[in-house]
């Protein structure tokens, strides 16, 4: 049988030594990232389970808390993040064609949109610190409030903070991807890292898709 292990002349570009061929490598790498994303689903899931328990037990406190959040900023951030998912999908699309400039263009767009999202979060967080709505660190809410208001804001900071941390990590990985793209690393045959990163970025978008209504849109009917 042919010995592929040491056959360097026909070694496909980008093929790692443990794989037999590029198809096996791509299949493995995608399965690997999805396995990791499943762990992320369960990871954030713990936060959502906590939210579920306390939301059903303290609906008034949660409505009060949600009222303090700015729907416009939240909705704006949602649009920004979904748009960044589009640009990321386009970057992956370009990577299948091996179009270096196309990939770079869309990666930069994704990076900028991610940056905008994080800036808005910074604005929101600063406002909370000013208004004394950060449990444990700066907690002096005005007027009468439910004692469980701190549960809502702990979840708000915990969940959006963990999400923001994932975005920051994503931004870092984006920089790495942009550098490698500029060097011409990704071709029509070898583009798995772009696609795999895309999966991560879309996942972070999905988490926000759930965070937005659960945190920002409660009790809007009561003014």
């Amino acid at each position, binding site marked *: 049988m042919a010995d592929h292990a040491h056959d360097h002349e026909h070694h496909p570009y980008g093929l790692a030594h443990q794989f037999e061929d590029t198809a096996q490598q791509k299949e493995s790498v995608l399965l690997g990232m999805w396995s990791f994303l499943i762990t992320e689903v369960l990871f954030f899931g713990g936060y959502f389970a906590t939210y*579920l328990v306390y939301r059903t037990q303290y609906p008034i406190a949660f409505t009060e808390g949600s009222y303090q959040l700015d729907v416009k900023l939240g909705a704006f951030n949602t649009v920004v993040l979904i748009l960044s998912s589009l640009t990321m999908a386009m970057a992956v699309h370009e990577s299948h064609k091996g179009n270096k400039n196309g990939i770079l263009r869309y990666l930069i767009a994704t990076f900028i949109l991610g940056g905008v999202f994080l800036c808005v979060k910074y604005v929101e967080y600063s406002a909370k610190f000013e208004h004394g709505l950060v449990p444990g660190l700066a907690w002096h809410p005005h007027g009468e409030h439910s004692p469980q208001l701190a549960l809502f804001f702990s979840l708000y900071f915990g969940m959006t903070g963990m999400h923001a941390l994932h975005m920051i990590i994503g931004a870092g990985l984006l920089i790495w991807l942009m550098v490698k793209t500029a060097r011409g690393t990704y071709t029509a045959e070898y583009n798995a890292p772009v696609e795999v990163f895309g999966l991560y970025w879309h996942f972070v978008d*999905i988490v926000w898709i759930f965070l937005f209504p659960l945190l920002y849109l409660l009790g809007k009917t009561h003014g």
Partner: protein
Amino acid sequence: MAEHHNSPTVGIYLSVFATLMVLTALTVWVAFVDMGAYNDLIAMVIACTKATVVIVFFMHVKYSSRLLWLFVAAGFLFLLIMFAFIMADYASRGWMEAPGSYFLSIQ
């Protein structure tokens, strides 16, 4: 394993984006309309739809192997199991308590 050959077109990506924008606007609008207990349900249905659309198209799961579908489904299934069993505890307290139970004493 043929996701490479059957990737979505740019047209599909743009339609998905438009759908997500519409659903976002919808969820914000519905939040201001009083439908009682249904507000929560509608918000979650919309969010789940958005997530599904991202997973199926942006993340190429529609064009991927059965195995990948199974992985994605399994992840969400176990998430639901976690939610269901935890909420079952809180929901069923008081249904059948032994005499002398702490729960009965605090009623």
